[in-house]
């Protein structure tokens, strides 16, 4: 069994939802466990095998000095490092702190703020170490996560497209919510991967998978203005789970 690749799953600042996506694979996870050695996955098992690891899945963003050091250790003992989810790839929803005075916030929130050691910003893993593959989503699509692992195991290309959500909407047969309903939708600038869930339920895309490969933010937001969307709402839409991804951040700042 020593030949099986060793897999580790690491958590940084996050809600655990992406790790749960892996556990949520149910049928697939047992089969995956037959092909890889799940060596370090505290959320799933207390049994931890020491590194190095062939593949590391990293969830969460860097928000503390301690984590900024820990990610270096993770990188050092990992062959392939794959970040999973909006926190790890863009700083996550907690990157909203990047627009605020963090000290002022924790003085308000915590009874004993002197115990808190934190960084000014929440940042993506790739801002700290070399990342081999980024899997987007809040949370990640569990089938894409399995596909990325299998692609690595079998030496093929993962089926992860960086184009807009619109292609998934059309494949699914959704009627465009922006064109037919006048509903503001982030889909045209958002990375595919979710399978266009929200438009299938008549909601605009929230941008959970972050910016697509060539996002034209000004073209979209100026159309939104024509739909009657207020500047503050444009800012909020750009500044959510992936609000610190450069394309979304820069557009949101125009509406400050």
């Amino acid at each position: 069994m020593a030949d099986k690749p060793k897999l580790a799953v690491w958590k940084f600042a996050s809600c655990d939802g992406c790790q749960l996506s892996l556990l949520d694979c149910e049928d697939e996870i047992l089969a995956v466990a037959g092909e890889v050695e799940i060596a370090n996955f505290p959320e799933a098992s207390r049994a931890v095998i020491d590194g190095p690891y062939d593949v590391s899945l990293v969830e969460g963003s860097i928000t503390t000095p301690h984590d900024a050091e820990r990610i270096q250790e993770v990188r050092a003992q990992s062959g392939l490092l794959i970040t999973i989810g909006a926190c790890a790839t863009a700083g996550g929803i907690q990157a909203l702190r990047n627009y605020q005075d963090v000290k002022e916030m924790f003085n308000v929130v915590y009874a004993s703020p002197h115990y808190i050691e934190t960084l000014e910003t929440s940042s993506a893993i790739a801002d700290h170490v070399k990342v081999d593959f980024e899997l987007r989503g809040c949370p990640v699509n569990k089938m894409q996560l399995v596909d990325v692992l299998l692609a690595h195991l079998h030496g093929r290309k993962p089926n992860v497209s960086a184009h807009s959500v619109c292609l998934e909407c059309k494949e699914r047969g959704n009627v465009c919510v922006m064109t037919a309903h006048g509903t503001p939708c982030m889909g045209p600038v958002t990375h595919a991967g979710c399978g266009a869930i929200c438009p299938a339920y008549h909601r605009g895309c929230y941008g959970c998978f972050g910016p697509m490969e060539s996002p034209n933010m000004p073209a979209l937001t100026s159309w939104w203005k024509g739909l009657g969307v207020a500047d503050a709402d444009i800012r909020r839409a750009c500044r959510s789970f992936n609000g610190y991804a450069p394309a979304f951040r820069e557009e949101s700042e125009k509406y400050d």
Partner: protein
Amino acid sequence: MKNETYILERKDFPTLLEELGRRGYRTFGPTVRDQAIVYDELESVDDLPAGWTEEQDGGKYELRRREDDALFGYVIGPDSWKKYLHPPRQKVFSCAAVDGLITIDDPEPEEPPMAFLGMRSCERHAIAVQDGVFLDPGSADPAYARRREQALFIAVNCTNASETCFCTSMNTGPKVDLPVDLNMTECLTPDHHRFTVRAGSNRGAEILEAVPTRPATEAEVAEAERRIDEAAGEMGRTIETSDLKDLLYANLDNPHWEDVGARCLNCANCTMVCPTCFCTTMEDVTDITGKSAERTRRWDSCFTWDFSYMHGGSVRQSSKSRYRQWMTHKLATWQDQFDRLGCIGCGRCITWCPVGIDLTKEVEAIRNSETVEEAHADN
């Protein structure tokens, strides 16, 4: 074969769908879903969009109530028959490694034949364009060929046109002029609600014989013609096609491409809704043990980076280059490739562009900029 024009009364319309069912067809046609008229499987005449129409413009689509109960009183929706003949996702083959040998399973699923009810003339032309791609002897797609061969076309001539229609410019409508199995026109007044019907094939004639009809009078045929002529006069857009190829070839470096590139979202909606766009990509998946694999073909678009990706990068990096690729293919290079235009004037790319980019206006802008340059040269 019944080759004259007949009248099918509205009250007898359900018998047509019943007859299609008896003959083993799954019938697909227009129905209202999610505030649009889409194509879906029809269970009965009640599924048709009776009394509905739509308003269309660049980036805008709105369902509207008609004052009557016309079954086909709309123009076209976001869907085209492409989604059935050339589906968004299609398994190409699966393979497995067994005892050191690779076996390949080429799927030939038994699909019941499909009947397409409500096909518009422009859509029939779009199928002719895709036939040129998928039935070409050198690169024929057997799955497309099988579905296409089995499919029954029941056309309904347009008696309305929308703001984004320009089939008259493309010589693709509104009157159905390519072969279909049945060709109908809906005629509705406060006094009557009926369809003129002509068979265009033996199977169309057999179906027509099985439903209650009577021969149409000359006046009834003339009424249908008049209604189609009215639609021809309602085109919301026009495009001058005589010089398109030369115009676009002479303007590959026109600064206007920058302008449209700045507005274009690169979202690929235009190519998804276009009934002639045929480009695909392949996806390979492996099972967990790596002992079997499957190849799937899915719709792709010249607006994605992967589409022109070659060892290390995408050939078309800029938004302007991707938009130029799409439009010059539709209107110019398609003529060299297939000896016809790739656009059939349905206007879906205009309506369903989330930011209302209008290829007829982009062509006009390029043409006008050329005129301006000539004027400068003359001075």
